[in-house]
């Protein structure tokens, strides 16, 4: 009876923590191998291999994030869903923020392409790039 009376949060067990740690190390290794892939060698014309590599890396990062939040932060064993909703609503708001800002920045100049040019800006990078260094183009 005494034990359940002060049931303050779930009892974190050793194998849960160590298991999460090992899983995270393995996934870091996976991420590294993925990033070392030489996308040029595997290039298949109809497939954007670089984009797939990037998404796979970010997916492994997401899995690691879930492992950390579920096991190390103990969200998995919370009785009430309150802390879980707080944690999840963060990402909902960030998703809204990135989606709408992306909807602006990547769709500018749909009607009038001149809106999308950066004209006569001075980049401190000295090397003479092919791109938009300081040209003032009358549209």
């Amino acid at each position, binding site marked *: 009876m005494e034990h359940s009376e002060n049931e*303050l949060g779930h009892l974190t067990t050793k194998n849960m923590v*160590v298991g999460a740690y090992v899983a995270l190390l393995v996934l870091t290794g996976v991420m590294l191998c993925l990033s070392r892939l030489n996308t040029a060698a595997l290039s298949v014309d109809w497939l954007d291999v670089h984009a797939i590599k990037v998404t796979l890396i970010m997916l492994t990062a997401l899995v690691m994030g879930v492992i950390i939040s579920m096991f190390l932060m103990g969200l998995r064993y919370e009785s009430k869903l309150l802390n879980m909703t707080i944690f999840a609503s963060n990402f909902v708001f960030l998703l809204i923020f990135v989606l709408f800002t992306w909807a602006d920045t990547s769709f500018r100049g749909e009607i009038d392409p001149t809106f999308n040019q950066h004209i006569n800006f001075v980049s401190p990078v000295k090397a003479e790039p092919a791109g938009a260094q300081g040209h003032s183009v009358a549209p």
Partner: protein
Amino acid sequence: MATTATTGLPEHHVAHHFDSAQQEFDSNKMGMWLFLASEIMMFGALFVGALIFHTLHPAAFNEGSQHLDWRMGTINTFFLLTSGLTMGLAVIAAQSGRQGAVRLNLVLSILFASGFLVVKFIEYKLKIHHGTLPGRLWHGEGFHDPYVHVFYGLYFVMTGLHGLHVLIGMGLMTWCLIFRASSVQFNRKYFTPVELVALYWALVDLIWVFLFPLLYLIG
């Protein structure tokens, strides 16, 4: 104050404005989670800036991250994950009342965290040497993309703010080690300080887990 036989430290008593220990524990935990929410939103806004910059100037992003040393990033990841492990063990020790194990794990976490900062310092020194500093301080050579200084601006802001949070985490661990571990007996009914520091540290790990691939590996 009931004092336990083993360490002679006083037990924790519930603050006057709380009705029960359970209510105090739940409030503290929810308060910590809300604070972590504001931290996630702060870093999240930086990640949004980085993602938007990534979509606008992918070439600059790739060129910038190629010059980052992924080996140092991996060592840092290892350091942070290991200190996350030791903090988890510290919580387990606190729950079962083993005060000495709590102290040991806290010291280990502080060591690994300082390891992270040392590697981070080396990386920054390397960057200063190469001259790849943000904006006006830039004097790097051999770069082509005109937006690469913005990548390094974002790199320094994100890793700098994360490094500051690692420092704050280390401060919290020392506070927990010196003031709490020696003044109150952790046990099944009271292990909140260690639990909250572990939560904060897990968040620092979580941010680094997303920061590391975004800056180092995607190039």
